[in-house]
């Protein structure tokens, strides 16, 4: 009952999926033939179908992270045929549809690969390193209450818009997965630039960038070598400009360090 494209024919596919029992056990690719996949399915719905089949057969379904299925929560991941979130640009895996594949295709599905993102199980990885980087300084230190009126400090529209662009990062980790060094610099720089641009964030701009970069290094992410793969694979289009801005912030902060810790 495909709603949109009556000519779309069901497809037969071969999936090669990474199965791994837990963090301590080695994993491997397991092959699953799939028949009659509707091109109107989303990629995750295709995995739902496979999981339902596995359940009925008494085999354990494939664990994968997902939640909103609208492309905004950042919970879904998957390295599909060597691409973070699959072949479509500007798209999370949950918004990827099977019509972008062809009948007879073999599709390889792996978890994010990075030392800082250890595998919990199958396709589920531990991204808590991202939270710890945010905890190191990704905030403006204001308590609830006692803040000025929202219109007290005008912010030029162009600045507000640029800050918004940086703030749209969904924290999925595709940038790390796409980078040959597993660098988290695009993720970190998005938060740093959002807050450095806004007047409210300027008070702490030096300590913020120093602390966040330090935490990024502690977590074991790799170094940036300017390949730009992160931005190319980012599902929400976070720009490389943020990295430039963070570097300027970092150098300026180090030159006049206020971070006494």
């Amino acid at each position, binding site marked *: 009952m495909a709603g949109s494209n*009556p000519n779309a024919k069901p497809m037969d596919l071969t999936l090669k999926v990474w199965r791994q029992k837990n963090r301590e056990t080695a994993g491997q690719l397991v092959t699953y033939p799939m028949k009659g996949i*509707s091109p109107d399915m989303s990629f995750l719905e295709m995995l739902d179908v496979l999981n339902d089949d596995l*359940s009925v057969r008494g085999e354990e379904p494939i664990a994968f992270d997902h939640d909103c299925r609208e492309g905004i929560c950042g919970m879904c991941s998957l390295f599909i045929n060597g691409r973070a979130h699959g072949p479509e640009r500007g798209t999370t895996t949950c918004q990827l549809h099977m019509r972008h594949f062809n009948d007879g295709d073999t599709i390889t599905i792996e978890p994010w690969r990075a030392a800082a993102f250890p595998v919990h199980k199958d396709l589920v990885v531990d991204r808590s390193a991202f939270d710890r980087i945010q905890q190191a300084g990704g905030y403006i230190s204001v308590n609830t*209450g006692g803040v000025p009126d929202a219109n007290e400090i005008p912010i030029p529209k162009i600045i507000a818009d640029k800050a918004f662009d940086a703030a749209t990062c969904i924290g999925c980790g595709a940038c790390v997965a796409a980078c040959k060094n597993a660098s988290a610099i695009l993720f970190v720089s998005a938060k740093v630039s959002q807050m450095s641009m806004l007047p409210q964030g300027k008070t702490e701009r030096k300590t913020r960038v120093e602390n966040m970069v330090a935490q990024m290094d502690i977590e074991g992410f790799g170094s940036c070598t300017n390949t730009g793969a992160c931005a190319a694979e980012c599902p929400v289009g976070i720009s490389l400009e943020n990295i430039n801005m963070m570097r300027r912030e970092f150098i300026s902060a180090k030159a006049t360090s206020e971070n006494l810790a």
Partner: protein
Amino acid sequence: MILDSKIPEGPIAEKWDKHKFDVKLVNPANKRKYEIIVVGTGLAGASAAATLGELGYNVKAFCFQDSPRRAHSIAAQGGINAAKNYQNDGDSVFRLFYDTVKGGDYRSREANVYRLAQVSVNIIDQCVAQGVPFARDYGGLLANRSFGGAQVSRTFYARGQTGQQLLLGAYSALNRQIAYGKVKMFPRTEMLDLVVVDGKARGIVVRNLITGQIESHSAHAVVLATGGYGNVFFLSTNAMGSNVTAAWRAHKKGALFANPCFTQIHPTCIPVSGEYQSKLTLMSESLRNDGRVWVPKTVEIAQRLRKGEITVNDIAEEDRDYYLERKYPAFGNLVPRDVASRNAKLVCDEGRGVGSSGLAVYLDFADAIKREGQPAIAAKYGNLFEMYAKITDENPYARPMRIYPAVHYTMGGLWVDYNLMTTVPGLYAAGECNFSDHGANRLGASALMQGLADGYFVLPYTIGDYLAKMPSDKVPTNHPAFLEAEQAVAAKNNKLLSINGTRTVDEFHKELGLIMWDYCGMARNAEGLTHAKQEIRKLRDEFWRNVKVTGVGEELNQTLERANRVADFFELGELMVDDALNRNESCGGHFREESQTPENEALRDDENYAYVAAWEFTGVGNEAILHKEDLEFENVKLTQRSYK
């Protein structure tokens, strides 16, 4: 049991200020002796946890996602209301209050709604101070838009991603407290029971979703900010993980559940395309500002269309029925959500629906494009058109969109008093999880407002009042009440794992969802509801005999997680049906076919149903006991809504 809403005395505009003065305070040096558990890290939970941490309490926060930033508040598109009156267009605290009570079809509590309107202005200040990049005008001041049919522009927004930006603001405040050690965060941890000691909420039992370990956490107060229960319908705009489990298990431990049948069904969603469909995607209702809703005039034309004999562009103008414009000339396509949704169902029930399933209506932009040009329409709705094209593979500039209503929000929830405390002392409910502010229908851009109002500005005061009156002694987690709860949770998990039946969790969930949608969805009647109750019971029995849950409990097991949630949806579903059956009137999102005007509009019955229906749990399969909180309207005059 007598429900005491604890509404403070005095004129409505002074109640909250007076109450804030009357509440007891906890000495700053004593705050660190108290522990508070917050379950859920969406707008309500993250803001509450952060603020309580700032005040000096020790907070433990829990979420089932891998990070607190993923909570489903993040998906809210449209905006957040606040009575700032920055646009000088006549808004005020009283007007926002009035609009919210009226929009809720007079089934909410005046005092709570007034407080919500009052603190709405503080929310915007707080978010801007945190670095939330709201939309701004060229002068650098905040921009507003009119939303959901409001007569004033009071909605603040961050493009189509307001929920994301507000949640990331609350998440940043939460992160700051985590870094200070005032909040301890437990991601990938799901609450499976509430622990009550001497009649007071003293902790929770959780399952670590990675290791499968069942663990207890003790505290002096527990806050549930666990969202709504729209996923009882299986298909909804909620996230896949959104569930009722924490709230439901608290209900089973004594917290009354209020108005469970009040469900909001959003009119502009992308229709179902196949059996495999896992969720529905909402498109902002701003689309109805320019799109015209129609279906073919006759069943014959609709049939030929569905068979593919003709295409939409073959249908002549005179064969199209712009039914909202025809029936509601004053509001046209901009009628409120419940009216738009119900009318879409009516025309589809008549056999005039479109798309291969016949469960869709057209939303047509051809006239708008002719009038304003494609670039102007793209500038307004480009991202929505793109999303539609991505999902359906159709070009909405060239042919009309197909839309259909979908479950979006639940106004019902745990009953709370003015302090947001449930009927279990020390247990609080905030955000969509409680029933308090939206009556029978929520206005657009009010969900985000309520979540942050509860978390930033209400709970931090009212919890202090409760803690100030109790000793700081701790209940150890080896107390019999904790051990009993742990055992019950483990036994339930083991039971689910041992059934080893033939049908999957999702199959049961889908079937339950269909029952709910058919009989307790956009239109309800006594016969259908009575039938649904039997069907739910039958299916629930089969679930406990024949579900297949693979794997083991001692590791990451997503099937077991879903099975627990679906088990609770079965019990909730029956209560929703009971509530819908009891409320023999139509109000807001609840339309009883027996109670309508000669023109098929919703007919309220204020004489008999101006109350909150709060239900007491008496055991699975037993009839719940109804308690009533009468609603008194001293500041708003009850009127029949009309959009003709």
